[in-house]
């Protein structure tokens, strides 16, 4: 590789990092320029905000989800509190998740971690209410068992964010896997909805192992 190509690649890498950094800032974005508080005030003090999950990136399978996740855990949601994001644009349900297995990432199994999922209600000090209503995905519920593909904590939310909008959130039930995503033709819904829990977990492990590089 000649020097020119090296320089060009370095420049390209920097530009790509910049573009990706911009992309990460639009996680939880789709919100208009006004804050939720202003919008709720404009709406007479009560705002129902139908919210679509972020679909700026759609992953085709758990292998890609795993590659783009900093943390993959299996855990049960213990409880949640709704919070306003730091920019005042979205409300998130911040779940305390009791981890039962860490498939990827550097945390101790058995510990509780915080996971933020867009949605929920918030009352501002002046009495204005807002409800961010998930439109194309299922609300996470307390006391349920989930597989979480997570990103590192950002500055906007208290907890880790789900990778791929809500693509990285799967409930494990006796009847099979239930993706949080409700978009019927989303690849992860097509592939994994209804799949047996054990088969799904085995597939995730294969995907994570496949992603490991040769030392």
């Amino acid at each position: 590789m000649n020097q020119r190509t090296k320089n060009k690649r370095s420049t390209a890498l920097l530009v790509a990092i910049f573009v990706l950094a911009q992309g990460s800032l639009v996680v939880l974005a789709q919100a208009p320029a006004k804050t939720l508080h202003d919008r709720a005030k404009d709406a007479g003090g009560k705002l129902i905000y139908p919210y679509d999950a972020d679909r700026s990136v759609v992953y085709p399978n758990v292998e890609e989800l795993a590659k783009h996740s900093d943390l993959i855990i299996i855990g049960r949601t213990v409880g949640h509190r709704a919070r306003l994001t730091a920019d005042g644009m979205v409300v998130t349900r911040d779940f305390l998740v009791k981890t039962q297995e860490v498939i990827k990432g550097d945390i101790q199994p058995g510990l509780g971690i915080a996971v933020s999922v867009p949605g929920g209600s918030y009352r501002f000090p002046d009495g204005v209410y807002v409800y961010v209503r998930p439109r194309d995905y299922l609300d996470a519920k307390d006391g349920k068992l989930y597989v979480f593909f997570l990103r590192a904590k950002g500055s906007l939310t208290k907890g880790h964010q789900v990778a791929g909008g809500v693509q990285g959130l799967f409930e494990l039930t006796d009847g099979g896997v239930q993706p949080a995503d409700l978009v019927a033709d989303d690849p992860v819904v097509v592939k994994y909805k209804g799949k047996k829990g054990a088969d799904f977990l085995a597939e995730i492990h294969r995907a994570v192992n496949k992603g490991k590089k040769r030392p």
Partner: protein
Amino acid sequence: MRRLYLLMGLAILVVWLLIDDTSAVGGNASPAAAGPPSAQQQTCCPEGSGTSPHKECVGGACVDVYECGFDNCAACQGCDPDGTKEWQCIQQGWIWDPFNCLCSPPGCDPDGSLEWQCVGEGGTWDPYTCWCTMSGCNPGPAILAHTTSTRYCYETGGEESFVMECSTTWRNYEVFCQDGSLYASWTIEENYCYWNDYCYQ
């Protein structure tokens, strides 16, 4: 609009890189610099020596090895290849160690309820000892401070769209410290929807 510019910029960048890569392969670049071995190289393996790349178990992971050889990831399958033991362990609420296939009891706070209660009351939780250290606040019980509700209509969308009428009730809870300062507040919403074609009227 900002996203559109970013995407356009990225697309131009990709085209630029592709042009450059093509010239590099055709120029002085060595085959090694041209990226991973292609399917062409699979034919380079002497007869009976397998393919390149082939799959091998390296460091516990089944990975592509760019040498001639036969696929063999048997050693990688681990002690729970079909996930059955893991699933049973997780379902019963225990902790699974996928590297050693060990299922361990969940410790002193199996369902996390003690931790949830501790954090909710303003304490600091130690998961190793299950000790809850209280701050100076000494918070009281949660009090229902406000209740308000609203109604709205929406269409379900899709091929057969329905008009739904919904009502949402917000219940706002507050917790005060012993000195009267507000320690925490949160809102719980309750939604009730039913099918009503005349909702907008």
